[in-house]
């Protein structure tokens, strides 16, 4: 172990030399104090931990998938025909590509869809044609199968609303388990035996895989994707969509 004193920093040597030139008495250069920064660091760390603890208390623990399923319903007063929502003769067609596990699709369904329904769909200016693009995981596939099976009983849009009402916090986290999908079908009053048979059918599997293939062929790479009369809608929010629909309408 060396017994040599610690060599002062260059600035410290320069300051000491300057003091010597001025004839000031030379003082020993102390090592930098660190208690100030240490104290502030400790205080900030403690405050940070208090903030995190407060957030944990306010937000609670991560929520598990609820035991019961929520019920959704197609918008009242809007005609439905299979995967089409709105007047089949409406001049503007909105092709909607979705994955039931996609959080942005849920956000679109709660922010834009209600206004679109109240205005353009209710007025018969536009109609929505749903396309499945299940790509997030197994529960996306199962939810799409549930949509297909509900459609076989003429209730696709009720199932559409119900699936989004039950979207989980985590993808593939059990929100669309088979038991919960069956419970959703029962809650909608569907023939559960028929629902189960349609869910497990080869046609349901084909609906999902062909939907994904068709979406990719149409250039869809994310959800929700809206194609208004053949032109991909790249804006966001209801106002921008309403403008595009108004421009497309004859």
């Amino acid at each position, binding site marked *: 172990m060396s017994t040599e004193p610690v060599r002062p*920093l260059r600035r410290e040597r320069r300051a000491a030399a300057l003091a010597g030139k001025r004839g000031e008495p030379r003082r020993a250069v102390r090592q930098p104090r660190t208690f100030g*920064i240490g104290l502030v*660091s400790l205080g*900030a760390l403690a405050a940070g931990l208090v903030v995190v603890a407060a957030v944990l208390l*306010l937000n609670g623990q991560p*929520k598990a998938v609820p035991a019961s399923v929520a019920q959704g319903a197609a918008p009242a007063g809007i005609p439905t025909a299979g995967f089409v929502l709105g007047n089949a003769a409406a001049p503007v067609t909105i092709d909607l590509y979705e994955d039931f596990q996609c*959080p942005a699709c849920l956000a679109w369904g709660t*922010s834009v869809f209600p206004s679109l329904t109240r205005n353009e769909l209710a007025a018969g200016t536009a109609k929505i044609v749903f396309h499945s693009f299940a790509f997030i995981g197994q529960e996306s596939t199962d939810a799409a199968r549930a949509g297909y099976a509900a459609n076989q009983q003429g209730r696709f849009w009720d199932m559409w609303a119900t699936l989004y009402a039950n979207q989980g916090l985590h993808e593939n986290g059990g929100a669309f388990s088979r038991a919960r999908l069956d419970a959703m079908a029962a809650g909608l009053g569907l023939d559960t035996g028929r629902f189960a048979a349609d869910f497990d059918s080869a046609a349901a599997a084909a609906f999902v895989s062909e939907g994904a293939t068709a979406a990719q062929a149409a250039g869809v790479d994310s959800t929700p994707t809206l194609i208004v009369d053949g032109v991909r809608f790249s804006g966001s929010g209801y106002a921008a969509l309403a403008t595009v629909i108004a421009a497309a309408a004859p």
Partner: protein
Amino acid sequence: MTTRATGWRRLRRIHPGLVLATLDLIGLAIASYLSSVELRGEVPNCGPLHGCEQVALSQYSRIGGVPVAVFGVGLSLILFSLAIAWWRTNDGRLLAMHYGLSLLGVVFELYFTYLELFVIGAVCVWCATYGISLVARFLVALWVWVHRERADLALE
């Protein structure tokens, strides 16, 4: 070599308070964008990088009903004011406050990053960029404080 040395000298002449203020403005811009989007009930656009939607729609994106990004706006505004005030007055206490608050923010960012990676299972690139700006602010404030303290002691 001469150009590089001159450039470095010029760079060192910039008051670190302005560097901190610039980083604070970057953080403020990101937090303001996220706040405006979330307060409108929409989700931020991540472009080809997915994850922002999932993070924004998770229960962790709000504290007591207020979007986390709003707190980020508040923190960045305070930090920006402190950086400017320090630049104008050279009062070391303002630097200490900037350092302490940015460290507090870094602690929260660590917690939020843990949530993104291990609980939500998605990473929001906007949040990550804000976090990086916060770490940069903390490191700059730490570096300046340590060097100032040494220089002040040498000049005693």
